[in-house]
Every structure is written in structure tokens, then in C-alpha cells.
């Protein structure tokens, strides 16, 4: 009879104390800042890479999508 293995606790994606939400004013017009969190193919990086909290990551996502709508950033790089 196979015993059920206890699942190991997963490490948090973003280590505590390393969040970088120092300046939460993410703006779609600040292209120099928000393009830091995009891949060369113009994809939005995930929280694991950006180290943002959930709220700032949502703001970043919204800012990038607004910039794409206005033709400031490409949909596909």
C-alpha cells in the first residue's frame, strides 16, 4: 500500500523583506520605468521577476496595457 507523501511546504515566490514597492506611483506615461518590467518580446514580467506586491503588480499591468492602447508600447515586440 502506497503511502501518501506529505507535500513539502513551498517557498514564497517573493522572499519577504525583498519587495521593491518603494515608489508605488506607477504611471503609463513613465515609459522609462515601466519598460524595465517587460521582456524583450514586450511581455509583462511576473511577480517572481518584478518583486512587486500584488497591488503594485496590478498597477504595473494596468499601466502597461494603457500604454499599449495609446501606441506607446507594442503588444508584441
Amino acid at each position, binding site marked *: 500500500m502506497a503511502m501518501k507523501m506529505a507535500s513539502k511546504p513551498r517557498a514564497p515566490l517573493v522572499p519577504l523583506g525583498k519587495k521593491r514597492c518603494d515608489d508605488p506611483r506607477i504611471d*503609463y*506615461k513613465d515609459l522609462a520605468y515601466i519598460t524595465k518590467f517587460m521582456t524583450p518580446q514586450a511581455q509583462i514580467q511576473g511577480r517572481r521577476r518584478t518583486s512587486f506586491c500584488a497591488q503594485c503588480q496590478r498597477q504595473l499591468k494596468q499601466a502597461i496595457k*494603457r500604454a*499599449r*492602447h*495609446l*501606441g*506607446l*508600447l*507594442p*503588444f508584441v515586440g
Partner: protein
Amino acid sequence: MNQYEGMFLLDNQVVRADYKAAKAVVIDTLKKHGAEVVAARRWDERRLAYPIEGRLRATFLLTHFKAGPNAITGIRREAELDERILRHLLLAVEEIPATELELSAAEGEDFAPPPPPADDAVDREEPLVVGTPDAVDEDVVSEEVGVGIIDEEEV
């Protein structure tokens, strides 16, 4: 009355003809629907990441205004229908930044932006033909003959 931020993409052909008239297109649209324009300035003129209505470049006009919630629907509809406005983005903001008021006041009445470069239009009417028709026909014929010979030898 809520406070809004509006970004409007203007056709560079209109801006090149008269910047004040192009700016008035947006401001008149806002005022027509009862908005109080607090600040309006040319944010930038830049190349677009992808063509919008056949334009590769556009002038960005950043506005801040106060309006009732019912006015936004009319402003959106008017901006959609106006061909001089390529695209728009309206956002509700909690407060209008003081820097925007200063920059808008600094633009003034006599502000004349540098004329946009001439490569803002995608030339769709240019025929996509490489080489003369005679030369193209000869190449096609020679390739067809060559392929036929190779096939016969292989068989």
C-alpha cells in the same frame, strides 16, 4: 464634478497645419459636454509602436478637466467619431498634479511646437513590385524550366 485625465492622440497632419486648431478640437469637445478644462498641453510627439489608422507618428495632448460622470459618455463618443483624434484614454484621478498646471500655463498662447517629421503616414498606395515586369517574367520562366529538367533526371 469629478476630476479626469485625458490623453488624446492627434493626427500630425492637423498639428502640422495649425497646432492651436488641433488643440482646440479637443478642448471644444470637452467644453461642449460641460467639462471645465483645467490644464491642456502637448505631452509629446513620437513614433507609435504600431500603426494607428495608417499613421506611424502622432502628437499626444494631455488634458486635465473637471466634469460630471454623465459627460464622459458623450466625450468618448465624440472622440471616437472625430477623425482628427486617432485614439483617446480617459481616466478618473483623485487630484490634478500641480506640475501639470505649471506646465500647461508655461505652454501659453504663443506656444509653437516644432513641426512633426514627414514620415507619419503609411504609404499604402505604393505598388509592391520588385524589379521590372519583364525581368520578373524571365526569372519565373527560367526557374520553371530548371525545375522541370531536374525532375526528369531524377525520374
